[in-house]
């Protein structure tokens, strides 16, 4: 075993009544990629946030190369040798690429309070070029670049100064093929330099492939640290959940007849620059999976069907002929939609769990035209509990929940609304295996109860495992359609995607 680089001793962190990290002690070694895994809310991100200065730990010590470190914020953490790349967007609009890369580090280019903007731009461009991102211009306002390019800029920002510890927190789910490749290259380089990567991901295959050691957290407690070469995904699932997980948590039925009743029809749907001439017929009790590469236009299909797309052409109609052209009509006619962009498009982050769950159902909760606080609370509690949401209570703010629990709230909202048609975009993005299994079971129950589901997903196994029919998209067009079958292989779908 090589030399210890970072020692975490008795790290403890509470959020109100929630014990997020419970006296975790863990060593990280030089030249190691060390994965942290666990269910949503297990404390992985809280642990690394305490290390990198996003949160302040309640007690315990981090010792890097023999010296105790206390990061006051991310930039302070950078100066002490730790850096983090986060799951969501971490760059700031309105600033240039260079200003984003050196945000908080302007003093390196400042003399007598005057910033040498030219020197900063030059240095930023040199860094971008050295990473092979020379098409990104340091002087450009960052808004000019798409999500993936902005993530690449974040990679430069977090790694250019060669931190001793690089935390990669659920970043891969936000990246396409190109971005992942670049990220893994940087991770490999960090390891080869004798530094350490702390890698957080819910993709267990990816975890085993990329890491040397894996530590498992459950409810804030360190369960075990294992060598990646000694375990498989089932072992990890067992460690994460605390019991044996069934190998196959998808539907097991094949050959079931789907009802002939069409409940939603999309005809010649076109959204300029996103999708072209898309057609779909959703039947009662059917799950349709829509898959493809990230930028193929599939995410726009969900919005188009929900009446949330701008400049949409074509028709979306229900079985009774009602046209769905806007969100209000969609909700009034029992259509639900959960966006891929959970924080920005599905949830009111600065509001309580209760308000998020009851929001579309207030008319149903009213009694004699009056909303009673007691009824709202009871409604929210019922559906939050039905989804096994980990929370202090429905009064808790959304921003305090983990990614998986946020998704449970989104689903609780639409279950509460008792919608008949549910459009789920990336329903298990950033979600741990246990919650995934819960969501799949819930979808299966809904299907059996006559609800119809459109599931948009970048995960091929999920499409194969859950859908009655799978539509594959490529460059905004439908490139293939498959019926549910035990013989259907991932390679069949991939062939239509690329």
């Amino acid at each position, binding site marked *: 075993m090589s030399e210890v680089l970072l020692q975490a001793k008795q790290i403890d962190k509470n959020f109100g009544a929630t014990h997020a990290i419970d006296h975790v002690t863990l060593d990280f070694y030089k030249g190691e990629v060390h994965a942290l895994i666990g269910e949503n809310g297990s404390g992985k991100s809280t642990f690394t946030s305490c290390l990198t200065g996003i949160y302040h730990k309640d007690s315990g010590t981090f010792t890097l190369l023999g010296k105790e470190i206390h990061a006051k914020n*991310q*930039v302070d953490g950078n100066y002490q040798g730790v850096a983090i790349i986060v799951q969501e967007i971490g760059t*700031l609009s*309105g600033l240039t690429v260079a200003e984003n890369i050196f945000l908080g580090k302007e003093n390196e280019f400042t003399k007598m*309070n005057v*910033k040498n903007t030219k020197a900063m731009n030059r240095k930023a461009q040199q860094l971008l070029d050295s990473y092979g991102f020379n098409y990104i211009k340091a002087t450009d306002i960052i808004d000019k670049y798409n999500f993936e390019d902005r993530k690449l800029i974040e990679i430069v920002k977090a790694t250019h100064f060669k931190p001793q510890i690089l935390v990669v927190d659920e970043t891969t789910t936000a990246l396409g093929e190109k971005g992942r490749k670049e990220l893994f290259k940087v991770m490999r380089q960090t390891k080869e330099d004798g530094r350490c990567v702390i890698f957080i991901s819910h993709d267990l295959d990816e975890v085993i492939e990329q890491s040397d050691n894996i530590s498992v957290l459950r409810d804030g407690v360190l369960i075990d640290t294992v060598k990646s070469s000694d375990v498989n995904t089932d072992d990890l699932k067992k460690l994460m959940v605390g019991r044996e997980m069934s190998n196959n948590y998808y539907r097991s039925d094949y050959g079931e007849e789907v009802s002939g009743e069409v409940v939603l029809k999309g005809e010649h749907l076109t959204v300029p620059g996103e999708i072209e001439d898309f057609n779909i017929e959703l039947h009662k009790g059917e799950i349709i999976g829509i898959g493809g590469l990230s930028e193929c236009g599939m995410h726009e299909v969900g919005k188009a069907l929900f009446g949330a797309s701008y400049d949409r052409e074509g028709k979306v109609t229900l079985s009774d002929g009602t046209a769905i052209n806007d969100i209000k009509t969609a909700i009034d006619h029992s259509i639900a939609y959960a966006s891929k962009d959970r924080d920005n498009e599905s949830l009111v982050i600065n509001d309580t769990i209760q308000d998020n769950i009851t929001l579309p159902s207030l008319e149903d909760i009213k009694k004699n035209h009056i909303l009673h606080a007691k009824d709202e609370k009871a409604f929210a509690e019922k559906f939050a509990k039905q989804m096994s949401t980990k929370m202090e209570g429905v009064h808790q703010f959304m921003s305090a929940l983990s990614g998986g629990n946020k998704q449970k709230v989104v689903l609780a909202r639409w279950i509460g609304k008792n919608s008949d048609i549910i459009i789920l975009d990336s329903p298990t993005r950033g979600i741990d295996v246990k919650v995934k299994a819960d969501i799949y079971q819930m979808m299966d129950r809904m299907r059996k109860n006559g609800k119809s589901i459109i599931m948009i997903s970048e995960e091929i196994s999920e499409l194969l495992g859950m859908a009655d029919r799978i539509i594959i998209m490529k460059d905004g067009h439908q490139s293939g359609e498959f019926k549910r079958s035990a013989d259907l292989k991932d390679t069949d779908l991939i062939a239509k995607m690329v």
Partner: protein
Amino acid sequence: MTKFQKFKQSHWYGLVLLALIAFLFWAIFKILAPQTFGDFDKLQTYLKTALYYAVGGCGLYFICVMGPFDMSVGANIVLSSVLAVNMSERFGYAGLIIAPMISGVLVGLLNGLVYIKLRISSLIVTAGLSLVYEALSIFATNGKEAILAPSYRAFGDYPGNLILALFAFFLCGFILKYTKIGTYTYAIGSNEVVAKNMGVNVDKYKVVAFVLCGFFVGVEAILTISYGTSMTSASNLASMSRNFPPLMGTFFGLAFKKYGHPVIAIVVGEFIIQLLFQGFVALGAPTTVQNIVTGIVLLAIVTLTIKPVKGAVVK
């Protein structure tokens, strides 16, 4: 990408667009009222007014980019102007220049500190404090009109006004582009939480923005009192109407921010507003019609310039 598309993305596009809008309004009113509008002398007069509003607009820009708002600009102008008159009587030009700058800074500092400490809306804080500043202006003048002595009116006309305004514009542009304050102003406006995580002392820089706003409004007060020569103290929020002329320039600055020249946009924007106002005066239009058309044109210009993305959240 065509040459025009490239040009549209360049920094020059915004400047050319502003110049074209200014020329368009000048040409329209010049055709409609050739005798009474827009000759060289009159353009100089329009610019004179635009200059002092633009100086205040530069100050407001720091606050509006971050997200808060300052409703005390009018009260600050009144208070700083009467103090400028009082101090000019004792210390001459030094008093005329330094007193409103200090007064503006103190007003900004108080606004910022109260806003940060009480954690309530900046609109409420600054509107509430406006009453205090107005009351102070009454104490400072005993309720009488403050008149600037003729010997101290150099900043009321060219070249004094232009020199002082240019100093303010260069200072604003410099702070935005060449200091941390500029970067952090945009960073906090973009995402306060991420800025905080990057080590930006958000509260401190919010106070700094209010102080800078106060300072530039103090400079505007020098130009205002020098040009107008007298100022009456205000009460019952009568100073509120003075908030809006500088704000219109700030709107232009915000709309043209993406082209990288907010200060020029503020100055030209104020000039465009003056062209509109004076154009209507030249046409003999009633004030109500002037206000309606000016308001609509302002909204149209800003909307067309920003071209908001469909579905984007606008607050």
